[in-house]
């Protein structure tokens, strides 16, 4: 058991924008009903939206030993099919009206239905396995991160401690539920008996703010793009007396904007907390204590309670001097078990032993605060979503044979390079459709040849000159 919903009795666990108010006791009952309909420990694909039913298909299952894989309800059908064929889940927990070949609806609640697949309980699960999350949700890569009960519990305890959460909190959803940062907000607030405000509306919609005010939201989380939008919308002119805390993760916020939000929060008696994490570490690894935010603009902070960082140079030796760049390595109980790329991997136990090579390049200052300065791996964050550039290249090469293509860019700006100019617009549309990410972030650049080294490997460095 992860949370013990029953201990908060009549306190509200969740309020939805369309008026559903669910107490902890009721949530616990509904979770047991869903478990009984499922019939035992097995794999369930939960197609997530920010609704109480979707929360039931996450927290209700984890609480009862059923293993959900959280996927975006808007995931491209073909990509979902690929995951379904690779993992053979026993059930899908999906919105009413969602149809899937070969499945039968056996239970429903709050606008969601339990679809029984023909696979039964054939996919075996390791006893420690609690949850599967994608690292790159939008590309439908068959790669999942395997999180254990202990991982989730350890990370949740740390978050509750450093954010000082209690039952008076009312976080409002701003992030997808299948996204590790969104999940961590749910985890930590359910543990303290707080009330989660769930809405499918976004910050650019009036209904979001109406709900926010009506229910007195106390906090929300955002990726860098969220804060750019809020700034652009002149959010700082809004009177939001109930708001206490804003957290930021999912990529590095521009220092200027970081400073702006810190100042606004100081003037209005709120807290702005920058954090750092990865799905591979359950969710959070570091936070920047709000009291020091102003003097540490641009930094992501210090390790969370129970965690520890070290910086490693190219030879694998720990770096002890300040201001020297190295790869960031993290130690803690929240370091997940490992990856899965097929059903058989779900039987595996812990492959990491509490140590994670983050793939991020960082520096430490004299006070022991860390700043991310680069990335070792080939991925970008698009509006907070990790997008694997090699995966996108593979998708493009499969769809558009007979030409050479490469992907590069910087956060929120993905560049497609191809040797045929006429197909570039089509490539752009294709990637936007497949990933569900807005086309505005996709740029194109025709090239006569994609630069390669003698071994035929793409020289991504040379592509950087085209990225603005």
């Amino acid at each position, binding site marked *: 058991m992860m949370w013990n919903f029953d201990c908060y009795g009549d306190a509200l666990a969740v309020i939805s924008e369309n008026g559903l108010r669910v107490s902890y006791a009721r949530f616990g009952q509904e979770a047991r009903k869903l478990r009984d309909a499922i019939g035992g420990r097995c794999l369930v694909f939960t197609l997530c939206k920010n609704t109480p039913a979707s929360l039931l298909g996450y927290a209700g299952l984890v609480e009862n030993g059923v293993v959900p894989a959280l996927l975006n309800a808007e995931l491209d059908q073909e990509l979902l099919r690929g995951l379904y064929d690779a993992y053979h889940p026993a059930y899908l927990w999906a919105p009413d009206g969602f149809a899937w070949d070969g499945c039968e609806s056996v239970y429903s609640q709050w606008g969601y239905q339990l679809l029984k697949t023909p696979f039964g309980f054939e996919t075996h699960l390791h006893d420690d396995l609690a949850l599967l999350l994608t690292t790159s949700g939008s590309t439908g890569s068959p790669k999942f991160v395997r999180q254990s009960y202990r991982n989730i519990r350890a990370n949740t305890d740390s978050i509750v401690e450093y954010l000082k959460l209690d039952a008076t909190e009312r976080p409002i959803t701003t992030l997808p539920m299948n996204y590790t940062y969104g999940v961590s907000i749910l985890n930590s607030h359910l543990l303290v008996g707080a009330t989660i405000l769930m809405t499918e509306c976004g*910050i650019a*919609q009036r209904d979001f703010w109406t709900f926010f005010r009506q229910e007195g939201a106390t906090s929300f989380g955002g990726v860098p793009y969220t804060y750019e*939008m809020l700034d652009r919308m002149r959010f700082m002119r809004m009177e939001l007396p109930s708001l206490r805390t804003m957290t930021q993760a999912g990529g590095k916020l521009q220092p200027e904007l970081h400073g702006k939000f810190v100042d606004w929060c100081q003037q209005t008696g709120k807290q702005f907390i920058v954090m750092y994490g990865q799905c591979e570490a359950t969710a959070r690894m570091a936070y920047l204590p709000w009291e020091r935010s102003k003097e540490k603009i641009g930094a992501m902070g210090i390790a969370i309670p129970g965690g520890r960082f070290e910086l490693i140079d190219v030879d694998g030796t720990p770096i002890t001097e300040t201001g020297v760049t190295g790869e960031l390595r993290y130690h803690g109980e929240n370091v997940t078990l490992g990856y899965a790329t097929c059903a058989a991997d779900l039987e595996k136990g812990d492959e990491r032993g509490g140590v994670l090579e983050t793939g991020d390049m960082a520096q430490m200052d004299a006070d022991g605060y860390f700043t991310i300065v680069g990335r070792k791996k080939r991925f970008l964050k698009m509006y907070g979503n990790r997008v694997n550039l090699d995966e996108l290249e593979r998708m493009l090469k499969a769809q558009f044979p007979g030409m050479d293509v490469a992907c590069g860019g910087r956060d929120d700006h993905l560049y497609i390079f191809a040797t045929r100019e006429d197909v570039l617009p089509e490539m752009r549309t294709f990637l936007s459709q497949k990933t569900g990410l*807005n*086309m*505005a972030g996709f740029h194109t650049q025709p090239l006569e040849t994609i630069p390669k080294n003698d071994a035929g490997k793409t020289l991504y460095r040379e592509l950087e000159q085209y990225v603005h």
Partner: protein
Amino acid sequence: MTNLEKYINAFVEALEVPAEDVAALVYGESTAWDSVGHMSLIAALEDAFDIMVDMDDIIDLSSFEKGKEILAKYDVEL
């Protein structure tokens, strides 16, 4: 270009949709008009009509039709 043409053009350019589709557009019903598209759209409208849209109006602009009403507040006649 008439104001209506400018208005349609803002949708076409910001959301990258064909002009014949814009009249039926509603926020959130396509990838084109998500939160990212919305901010591009607001910027395009501000440029096209040389106005500054208030936050209240930014979050109210939920459809092609609604946008027309909002622009009227900024003395833009379509």
